[in-house]
């Protein structure tokens, strides 16, 4: 399969294959991305995050459907937690987006957070790049919403929608420190439940503490399940986009994001090179043994590794 030709012809299988190859850091994939990179930068990237059970997938499903009505092409990257013990994951976000499966203008890719060596960063970034080249007008990244990925999402998205849900009570107090800085829009979902007005009011109160003179994140009550408030939410997303462009903070934000991306790719390249030194992890194992025997200390071991790495790069460039 000629992946690049397929990608440019909008063949979904080629795009899907390329995403996998980028995740694996395959040379062929890197070559294609390099050749096609000038085609990126057009898609609007929207992050959907929030606590588990808030209804992120349903919100995404409704927003995508609404965008489809106006003929937009939409990509979705749905991330679920990878088990740190087994390395496996149940990726169940598609369950809420069944109708979109056969829509030719929609591409949904599920992936696990995949833990230590990059987590949300590497694989999701690759998928977004490919979908951007593919020609998507909007790309949604839907994350797990607990821990590191909440912070990571900011490094990816132009607009972050924080989906909350009433009934969390004091839990809001516990998580407010992080989320108040992250959300560009707060959507209180399942607003047919008791306490939805109060939840919205609490969020407004906490936003009062972090007053950004230029932009105040709006708070909206919605019921995604029956499409209530979804059109309004989309309008808020469009408003945020306008604000980003008019205020000039867009460029700054994107450049900062690219800086992180470059560092992540660099870090990944270093690790790959180290792991392929002299036939796999043998060198590292040997060094660990030596440190165990107190023939070396960990810092000297790392120095040796750095020397090997430098030698390796010079020889193999």
């Amino acid at each position, binding site marked *: 399969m000629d992946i690049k030709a397929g990608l440019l012809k909008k063949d979904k299988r080629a795009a899907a294959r390329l995403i996998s190859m980028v995740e694996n850091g395959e040379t062929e994939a890197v070559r294609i991305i390099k050749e096609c990179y000038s085609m990126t930068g057009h898609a609007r990237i929207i992050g959907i995050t929030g606590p588990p059970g808030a209804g992120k997938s349903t919100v995404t499903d409704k927003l995508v459907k609404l965008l489809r009505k106006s003929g937009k092409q939409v990509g979705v990257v749905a991330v679920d937690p990878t088990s740190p013990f*087994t390395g496996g994951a*149940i990726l169940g976000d598609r369950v809420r987006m069944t109708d979109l499966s*056969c829509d030719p203008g929609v591409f949904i890719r599920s992936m696990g957070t995949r833990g230590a060596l990059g987590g949300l960063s590497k694989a999701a970034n690759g998928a977004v790049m490919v979908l951007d080249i593919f020609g998507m007008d909007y790309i949604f990244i839907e994350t797990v919403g607990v821990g590191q990925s909440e912070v990571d999402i900011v490094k990816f998205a132009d607009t972050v929608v924080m989906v909350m849900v009433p009934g969390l009570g004091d839990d809001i107090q516990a998580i407010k420190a992080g989320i108040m800085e992250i959300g560009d829009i707060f959507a209180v979902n399942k607003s047919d439940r008791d306490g939805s007005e109060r939840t919205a009011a609490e969020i407004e109160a906490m936003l009062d503490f972090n007053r950004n003179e230029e932009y105040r994140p709006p708070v909206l009550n919605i019921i995604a399940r029956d499409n209530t408030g979804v059109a309004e939410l989309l309008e808020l997303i469009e408003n945020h986009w306008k604000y980003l462009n008019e205020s000039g903070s867009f460029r700054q934000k994107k450049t900062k994001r690219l800086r992180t991306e470059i560092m992540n790719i660099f870090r990944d390249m270093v690790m790959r090179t180290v792991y392929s030194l002299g036939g796999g992890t043998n060198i590292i194992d040997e060094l660990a043994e030596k440190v165990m025997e107190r023939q070396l200390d960990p810092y000297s071991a790392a120095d040796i590794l750095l020397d090997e790495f430098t030698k390796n790069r010079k020889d193999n460039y």
Partner: protein
Amino acid sequence: MDRPIRVVVAKPGLDGHDRGAKVVARALRDAGMEVIYTGLRQTPEQIVDTAIQEDADCVAMSILSGAHNHLFPKVVNLLKEKGAEDILVVGGGVIPEDDIPGLISAGVAGIFTPGTPTSVTIDFIKANIKR
């Protein structure tokens, strides 16, 4: 640093009994695979589109309603049509012994009926995927 094996677990047709599918999904996750769980009432078209977008290595279907002779081969054929015949197709559920040879010759690589240890299914998938 290769990515994990990706398996689409789907229930085609109108059968609503998903306990078996969930047991298998969990077992595959515990074996280190990424399981794209699509839920109930999937059409063959939806299953195939999902498998393609997700670049799945394997499609694992569960049917307890008796519609396997129609739906399993339909998925195999649709995959072939879309140029995705390298995706491994396996199935399980309430499937009479007599129907198994027919399904195998229609392109389903393995059938795992109730009572099959999940380790058998896991080992089969690991041994037979195309990468």
